[in-house]
Structures are given as C-alpha cells and as structure tokens.
C-alpha cells in the first residue's frame, strides 16, 4: 500500500512536470489571486485602516468588506474556470490511464495529489507574496485615501486563517469537480472524443439582426441623449442591451460576416484569405461566448477605472462645487425660539479662528427666510404654478433651487453698499440669466426688481458660485410678505413657523488643513453654548458644511473606490491574460496538424506565419476593439451621469476614458505578443 502511494506520488509529480506549459501559468495565476486575496483580507483584519484618524475611514472599511465579498466570488469563479479548462484538456490522458488498467479511483488519487501539490504551493507562494507586497499595497491605499502618515501596517493572524480556509474550500471543490469528471469518463469515448464534427449554428440572420438592432438602439440613445435624468434612468437598460447584443453578435454576427466573405468568391479564394476565413469560422464557433465574456469584462473594467479615476482626480473640482465657501454654518430653531444674535455669533467665530491660528479671508453672517423655486429658461416658477411645467423641455431644466430671502440691512452690511429699497421692491442676487428683469411675479403678487446683482459675496463663493437664489427685501416685514407670496402654506411652517429666520455664517479661511477642521468641529459647540446660556429652554438646530471635512470624506470614498477599481482590474487582467494564453495554447495544438497539412500541400512557412498572425490578431483583438467601441459610445451618457453626480469638470470622464483605454490596450498588446509567440512555437511545423 505504501509502495502504491509513492507510485501515485511519482506519477503525479511526473504529470505536473510534463504539463508544465499549462501548470506553470496556472500556478502563477493562482498565486497572484491568493496574494491579492490575502492582502485585502489582511488590510481589513489588521485594522490598519481604522488606525487612521478622522471620520471617513469607516467608509474605506465598508468598501473593503464589499471588495472582499466581491473578490471571493470572482476568485472562486476564475479558479474554477481555469481548472475546468485544464482538466478538459486531459480527458484523453485519463482515457489512456483507463486502458492501461488504472481504475478511476486510482486516477482520482493521482490528480488529487497533483492538485494538492500545485495548489498548496500556490497558496504558500501567494501568502509569501502577500506579505512582501502587502505593505506596498497598503501604502498605495493610504496615499489614495489621503492619510499616509496615520495608517500603520500590520499582519493579522486571522487573515492567514481566513485565507487558508477560503482557498482550502476553493481547491477542495475544484478537486472534487475533477474527480467527478474522471468518474464520468469512459475510456472508449475518451480516446475518440478529440475529433468531433462541428455543430451547425442555426438562425444566423435573425440573431444577427436582433443583435445589430439592440446594439444600434443602445448606441444611438447613449450618443444622442442630452438630459441627465434620462441618462440615469436609461443607463442600465442600455447596458443590458449592449451585453446581450455583444453575445448575439459574437455568436451569430461573426458567422454572418464570415459567411458573407465566403460567398464572395473573388475574396475568399485568395491565398491570403482562404485559410484565415475558414479557420476563423471554425474558431469563432468555438469561442464566441468566451470572446464575448472578455469583451464585456474589458468594457466594465474600462468604464469602472475611467469613472473612478475621473472621480478621484476630479476631487478638487467636486469639492469646490459642493463647497462654494470653506465653511457654511446654518443655525435654525423652533417657532417659539428667538434667532441667535448675529454679532455675538460672528465674534465667537472670529475668536475661534484666532485661537486655532487661522486667518479669516472673509467672515459674515446673515438672517434669511428659506424656500425653493424653479428657474426655467430664465423664468421663476414658484409653488402652485406647476401648470407652467407642462411640456417642459427637460434639457433646459435644472431642477429646483433654494431661495434665501434676506433683508436690506444684512445685504448692505455684508456688501458695504448703501442701497435703498421701497416696500414691494427687491434686489435679486444671482449670476443666472433672468428674462423679466423688471418684475418678479408670484401667484398672488408682483414685486418690482430694482436690480440684479451677479457677483455679490452671497452668490460668489471663494471656491465656486453658489447655486441658490437670493432675494433682498426692504425689511423683515417685506421679506415675510415675499416669502408668503412665493409659498403660501408651507407644510414645515407648522413646526418652524413661516417667519423663522435662519442664521448663516459664511467663513473662508487660510491656514493648515487640520486647523480648519478643528475650526469647523468646534464652531457649532461654541455657538450652542452661547445660545443655551441665553435661552436654555428652546430647541436649536444646526448644520455645518466644511470643505476640509468634506475633503477627507471625499478622499475616503473616491480613494477607496479607485483602489478597489484598480484591484479588480488587476485581478481581471491577470485572468484575461491567462485565459487568452490557455486558449491560444490549446488551439495551437489543434492547429498544429492543420498547418502541417497546409505546408505539405504547398503553403510556404512565410505564408503560414502570416496566416497565423492574422488569425491570432483577429481572435485576440476582436474583444478589445468591440470593448473600445462600447466605451466610446458610452462616453456621452457617462459624462451626463457624471454631471448629475456633481462633477464640476465632466470633461475629465472623457479624458480618463481615453487614458484608461490607451493603458489597457498597451497591456493587451504586450500580452498578445507573448501569447502569439507561444502559439507560433507550438504550431510551427518542422
């Protein structure tokens, strides 16, 4: 018995060596996947991320968990796919074992031993690689998220255990699957199974037409859509249409095109086309689904990475457009309470700035009554005027805007002007174009517009323009009148009262980032202390928007997204490469015989070489070209969606699509050259 065991061991070892061409790439891929899995697990379990100070790190943690879950599924799928690819190639070998008299359980034992050796080597190598490169990857994550100084890298024992268990399960299931395949085998079938006729594809024309229509429809929509909201609602239907169309076209469309080429006799019966066209027909039949898979995954990688890059590298623009001013601090209160004292609040802010050691570039406060309006093609539309919105041109529709009604006193105070207003007169503060510059019409009343100011400090923020509309009224009474004319019977008035005045402090600061954060975090507390000292009974509320705090959160989200996006892209790329390689190798063996016949019949080795090149080129680059086409067609719809997700410079999306596509194509070309070499080495006839 012992002797037998060592025999199996020897056979398994010999098999691994003999199958080096397949086993080595499999081992490398599996190791990379183990390393990536281990690294991401360890980053989470070693609490390296939560060591980081400031809010926003939980976001990164949540993203890591999400990443781990997705990654587990992907890794499992990929390894299973690779394994089935390898085992399928060996059916003939198993049949031979059967004929030589080995029982199925013996064969099972041999392949289990083989799998154990290769897989455990992969797990150990992978973990070793994970330890070595983990720190580097962690530093990359920190740099992306933006806290390189604070994160500390550590190794957690749990991550070792989790990795062992996870891959133990993965490899046990692949081994069981292989055992199952062996038990299905019948030596007689096995020896003859290699050469079988091709299946005939039915319904080529209708399937091609359906695919072309789906693809064309989705392309036309995504290229010509102009409205953001429409883009978002139709994005997923378009994606599904494109995915389906890709499968249909790779499956039937390719046969349709090749069939048409075959029918063109003057084209087909030329030395350089003859062999390529017919072997492509054969290859596309076998590989349509695989190539479509690669195409769709490539598209996803391109879209994800370019979107993540655009978000990450466009952060500052997004931040600026979300935070027109460095700090916006809003205080409001219940109906019964009294608005906080303006001068006192400003004094608190001023003192705090001084204490924290930052300069205030500007600091002002104002009271306001709030409501909303719609500004459509230069015309104000208020509540109860929805009729005006019938048949609206969505392209020109910007959504609803916040309205602040302030008093002349605050306006003059902040701007230093000496403007005057009669009752019923208003000043409008907005850089947006307005049609009727003489009057503001509401359902019940008209107000005379005395002037329109485009660049007051209210709307012209330090970082970007304020979206909101400001109306300046003569005094508090007039302000309330305007407010009630705009929106009679607001539902929230019951709680806050129609005349509740919001108090807002706008501060623009110069100083260190940490100090600015401290300022934004302390200001509400100090303001509340002061208010509570005066009126302890009443309820006050606040919200504060700080560009610096926002920057940390944004960094955590977008940095985390980019990190995960790249992580998955690497995982995907590694696998695409390996799948392509395996396909080329196994097809190389099929084609070897074919090309040797061709040479016997009188094809020169140069012709063989050029035919092979053409064929490999087309098979290899068809998915990439289609993926690039998809991404190009998606450019407009992606840009529109980015617009909706507040990206100030949406041109970035397009730029990043091009950069990502260029990098991706470059990697693809390198892989192609390596693969084509292997393929040629196999096929070349001597």
């Amino acid at each position, binding site marked *: 018995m012992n002797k037998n065991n060592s025999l199996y061991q020897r056979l398994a070892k010999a098999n691994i060596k003999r199958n080096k061409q397949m086993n080595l790439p499999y081992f490398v891929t599996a190791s990379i996947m183990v390393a990536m899995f281990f690294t991401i697990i360890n980053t989470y379990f070693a609490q390296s991320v939560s060591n980081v100070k400031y809010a926003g790190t939980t976001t990164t943690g949540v993203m890591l968990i999400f990443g781990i879950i997705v990654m587990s599924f992907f890794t499992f799928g990929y390894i299973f796919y690779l394994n089935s690819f390898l085992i399928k190639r060996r059916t003939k070998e198993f049949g031979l074992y059967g004929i030589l008299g080995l029982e199925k359980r013996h064969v099972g034992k041999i392949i289990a031993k083989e799998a154990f050796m290769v897989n455990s080597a992969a797990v150990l190598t992978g973990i070793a690689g994970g330890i070595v490169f983990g720190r580097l990857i962690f530093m990359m994550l920190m740099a992306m998220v933006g806290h390189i100084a604070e994160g500390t890298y550590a190794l957690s024992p749990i991550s070792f255990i989790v990795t062992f268990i996870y891959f133990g399960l993965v490899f046990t299931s692949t081994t069981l699957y292989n055992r199952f395949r062996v038990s299905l085998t019948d030596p007689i079938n096995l020896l003859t199974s290699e050469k079988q006729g091709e299946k005939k594809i039915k319904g080529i024309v209708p399937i091609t037409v359906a695919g072309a229509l789906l693809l064309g429809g989705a392309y036309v929509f995504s290229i010509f859509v102009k409205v953001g909201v429409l883009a978002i609602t139709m994005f997923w239907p378009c994606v599904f249409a494109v995915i389906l169309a890709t499968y249909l076209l790779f499956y039937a469309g390719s046969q349709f095109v090749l069939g048409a080429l075959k029918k063109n006799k003057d084209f087909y019966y030329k030395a350089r086309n003859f062999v390529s066209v*017919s072997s492509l027909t054969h290859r596309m039949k076998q590989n349509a689904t695989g190539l479509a898979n690669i195409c769709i995954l490539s598209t996803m990688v391109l879209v994800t990475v370019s979107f993540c890059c655009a978000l990450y590298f466009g952060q500052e623009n997004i931040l600026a457009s979300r935070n027109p001013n460095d700090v916006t601090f809003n205080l409001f209160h219940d109906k019964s309470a009294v608005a906080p004292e303006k001068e006192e609040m400003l004094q608190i802010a001023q003192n705090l700035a001084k204490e924290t050691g930052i300069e205030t570039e500007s600091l002002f406060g104002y009271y306001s009554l709030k409501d909303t309006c719609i500004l459509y093609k230069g015309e104000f539309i208020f509540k109860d005027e929805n009729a005006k919105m019938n048949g609206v041109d969505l392209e020109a529709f910007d959504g609803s805007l916040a309205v602040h009604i302030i008093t002349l006193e605050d306006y003059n105070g902040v701007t230093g002007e000496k403007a005057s207003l009669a009752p019923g007169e208003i000043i409008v503060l907005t850089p947006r174009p307005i049609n009727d510059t003489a009057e503001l019409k509401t359902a019940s009343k008209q107000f005379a517009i005395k002037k329109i100011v485009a660049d007051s400090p209210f709307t012209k923020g330090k970082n970007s323009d304020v979206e909101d509309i400001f109306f300046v009224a003569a005094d508090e009474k007039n302000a309330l009148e305007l407010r009630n004319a705009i929106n009679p019977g607001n539902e929230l008035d019951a709680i806050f009262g129609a005349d509740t005045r919001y108090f807002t402090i706008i501060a623009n600061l110069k100083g260190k980032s940490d100090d600015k954060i401290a300022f934004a975090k302390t200001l509400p507390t100090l303001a509340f202390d002061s208010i509570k000292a005066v009126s302890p009974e009443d309820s006050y509320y606040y919200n504060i928007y700080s560009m610096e705090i926002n920057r940390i959160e944004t960094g955590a989200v977008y940095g985390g997204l980019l990190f995960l996006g790249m992580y998955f892209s690497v995982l995907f790329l590694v696998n695409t490469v390996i799948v392509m390689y395996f396909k080329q190798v196994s097809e190389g063996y099929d084609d070897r015989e074919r090309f040797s016949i061709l040479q016997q*019949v009188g094809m020169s*080795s140069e012709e063989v070489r050029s035919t092979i090149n053409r064929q490999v080129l087309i098979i290899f680059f068809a998915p990439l070209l289609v993926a690039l086409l998809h991404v190009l067609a998606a450019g407009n719809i992606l840009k529109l969606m980015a617009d909706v997700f507040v990206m100030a410079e949406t041109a970035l999306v397009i730029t990043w699509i091009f950069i990502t596509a260029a990098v991706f194509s470059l990697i693809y070309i390198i892989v192609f050259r390596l693969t084509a070499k292997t393929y040629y080495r196999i096929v070349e006839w001597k």
Partner: protein
Amino acid sequence: MELLEVKHIKKVYNTRLGAKQCVALSDISFEVARGEFVGIMGPSGSGKTTLLNLIASLDKPSGGEILLSGKNFSQIKNRELSKFRRENLGFVFQDFNLLDTFSIKDNILLPLVLADTPVAQMEERISPIVRELGIESLTEKFPYEVSGGEKQRAAIARAIITNPKIILADEPTGALDSKSSANLLKTFETLNKGGQTILMVTHSIDAASYASRVIFIKDGMLYNQIYKGGESRKAFRERIMTNMSLLTEGEGEDE
C-alpha cells in the same frame, strides 16, 4: 531523360544529443519514367517514408541528389520550395490529411487557391475531376460528414487538381476497408492509364500489385525491384509475395 532521378541518396538523423547517428537511408538510386506507376515496399523501419519525404522535398538528404525533370532539388531555393511542391507534386496520405475547417470542395481547391488561380479557372478544373472520382454530390459537405473512402477520393482530387508531374502516395489504403481500397487502387490505375506518374509507398501486397513496378527497400538500401511487364495482376501479386518473404526471411535469420 527520366522524370524522376534518385541518385545515391543518403539520410542520416542525428539523435537528440548528437552523439549517435541513425542511418535511415544509406545509398539508394533509382529512376522513374513518365507514366510509370511505381510501388515502394519494405518492412517497417526500412526507410520507405524517409525516402518519400525526401522525394516530396519535405526533407533534405544528407548526401546524393534528387532530380525532377532534370531539376535538382538542392538548387531550388528554400523560398521557392513550397511553390515547386505545389506545382509539381501531388500528395495522398494514409490519414487523408483533409482540413476539417474546409468543405470537400475547398479542400480540393486548396493548392489552386494557394497558387492564386482565378476563380473561374478553378471551377473549370474541379468539375471534371470530382465527376470522375464520383464525389460530385459531396463537394459542399465537410470531411467529418463523409466516409473514409470518400475522404481519400477527395484527397486524390486535391492531389491531381494541379496536374502534378508525379503523385506521391504514402500508404493510401492504410486506413480504408478492402472495398474502398480496391476502388482507390482502381482509380490510381485509371489515372495511370491516363498518363499520370504515381509513386506509392505501401505495406500492402495487394496494393502494390496494381503498380507497374515494385521497388523493395531494406535497411535503407535498395534490395530488389521487379517489373510487372505483361503479367496479370494476380501473377505479379505472387511474385511480390515471394520477394517480400525473402526480405522478411533475412530478418528472421539476423535474430
């Protein structure tokens, strides 16, 4: 001038490490005249296939020379070799060597396509051939859809479509049943009567009896050759058998 002249051909293979040399053919000379049907026989390992590969210009001899219509193979540049092969030689193999990605018709047309023949001319050439070989109805089928005998006839069609000077056949009946074999050999006979020169390597005495001359090879040397002359096929068969047993007897004595 003879059509094919094989002069003192020698072929030595180096083993992998280069230390040992393996002599496949030591010294073989013979000629084939236009319109001859020559069979080459010999036990396994006698060098038959090596000889055929050399004549096919698929391999180069270590010594000696081969001339086809007076043209020395060694003077043909490597780049022109495939063209030469395409224009002058037709091949029929034991496993047919049809490409399963091509229809029967495209398989037959393959050498013409490689020579960039105009489509109209190709159509003109193929129709009498497939009619003659009785595979007219199969042209649109694929190799895996037809029988072995039909495959071999398609292979013959492919071999003769270029009007080659000589057809080289390597065990053409090896994978066929007796009925298909007889059919195939009759086809060869007919082709030969039409003036086609054929050189056929075979194991089968029955197949060889269709030839007009049989060359026997043993241990890389020409052992003997016999001519059919005006003899019947049956009588010729007997003589071939006698020669073969002489050949194999020698083998037995060596052991």
